[in-house]
């Protein structure tokens, strides 16, 4: 009796797990690996550093905004667009499983946001540092 019921419970849990598993194209670590391949080809490449990424994320780069203007000081928290006030879901993968799971999306947002924050495109080194930092952020 007991064994049957617990078996059903586990079956249920497994079924729920299967149906709720999001079908992401990539994992954030795979995205990081792709960035590393790109960065490694550049001169002056250094191992990605979470500390450097955090610094990059939190300071201004000569323009009005930093990354934190929209994403806040805590990447695991919900952010808010500095201009429009639109809610922005957490950027850290630990708090938002959708983040950094689609390389095309990652590149689009880096292009758009680096333009806003730095007035230029980010280098693969900078992107890798930032993602390394975001991957260290706990929920």
């Amino acid at each position, binding site marked *: 009796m007991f064994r049957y019921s617990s078996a059903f419970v586990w079956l249920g849990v497994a079924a729920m797990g299967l149906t709720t598993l999001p079908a992401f194209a990539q994992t954030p670590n795979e995205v990081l690996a792709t960035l590393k391949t790109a960065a490694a080809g550049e001169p002056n490449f250094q191992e990605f550093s979470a500390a450097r990424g955090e610094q990059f994320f939190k300071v201004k780069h000569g323009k009005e905004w930093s990354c934190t203007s929209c994403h806040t000081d805590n990447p695991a928290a919900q952010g808010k*667009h500095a*201009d*429009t*006030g*639109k809610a922005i879901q957490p950027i850290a993968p630990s708090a938002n499983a959708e983040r950094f799971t689609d390389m095309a999306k990652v590149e*689009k*947002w880096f*292009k*758009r946001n680096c*333009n*806003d924050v730095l007035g230029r495109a980010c280098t693969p080194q900078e992107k890798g540092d930032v993602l390394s930092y975001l991957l260290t952020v706990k929920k």
Partner: protein
Amino acid sequence: MNQRVLVWDVPTRVFHWLFALSFAACWYVSESDLWLSFHTFFGYLMLGLIAFRLVWGFMGGHYTRFSEFLYSPLAGLRYLRQALSGSGARYIGHNPAGSQAVYLLLALGLVVGLTGMFAQGGEEQHGAVAGWLAVSTGIIFKEAHGYLAIVMLLVVIGHLAGVAMESWLHKENLPRSMVTGFKEAAQGSAVSKPHYGVGVALLAAAIAFGIWWFFYAWHEPVAKHLGYGGAQPGLHVAFVGPKLPDNAKWRDECGGCHLAFHPNLLPARSWQKLMDGQNKHFGTDLALDDATKAAVLAFLLNNAAEHSDREAAYKINRSIKASEAPLRITETPYWVKKHAEISDAIWRSPKVKTKSNCGACHEDAEAGTFEDAAMKIPK
């Protein structure tokens, strides 16, 4: 020797008081956008009641049949003159003047109900005749609806004055008769059958319609009001309307940084200009690849203001000069006019902050429908 006779059968009394209730309820909320679904419910109820009464005029109890009070308007006026001079004869059923009120109220109720239905079907694309008419035609029906309702109110006032006068003239309580159904009458006067079954069925049908309507239009907002969703206090009855065209790519791309403003809020030429300048979109390079840009633009152009049957789309589009292609919805003359009364304090309030934050007041901003009833200024 007088006796108590049943004059008004049960269905006629149920009809009368529900008709009166519907009219009063419609008037009471007629100026309120929030209560539009309430107004509409009683409008449909009124139409249903009138349809019943028209049939019942041929099948009902003795005094409720049209053949029993077929008086000409002239006969009505003549009776009115006699009554005013204190010499009007007493009628057990409808007197010639009161009959005019019956006919006028039935006719006006029908026309007011139908114009209301077509106003909503045209202007809001809602209800039983949604999509039958263009917004511009719906606006004409709405005007007619308002004027005819005033005429109907005048007839109701005349009816009430007549009832008061007759009650005083013949020393009998006419409103009570419409509740109990009975009047004093001479021996041998005709008697109506009560028709309990039909009366109960009519009442049950009205209640069933109310219950259905509750789940159709009120359940969700009321539930929200009572607990979840963090809704503001105050009963908010947003109305159910048709959904607008949607597109995942548009919602994803445009909704990333701000509300995904529905394409029907600007004309096609504005969207074309906006997407041509996507690399300098209000200071930001959207960095859209060509395929994405083309897909989003196609959705925007196909569903732009001039291709939409929504009220806001129609009015925004009409307000923009043909030579102009504004990039901000908030720059269109209709938007400016519509929001002129919003005070600076509201714009600056932390819940609003920016004019692009449509969702602060319009609950259905994400859906793009901008229903009258879904608008509420946050406190």
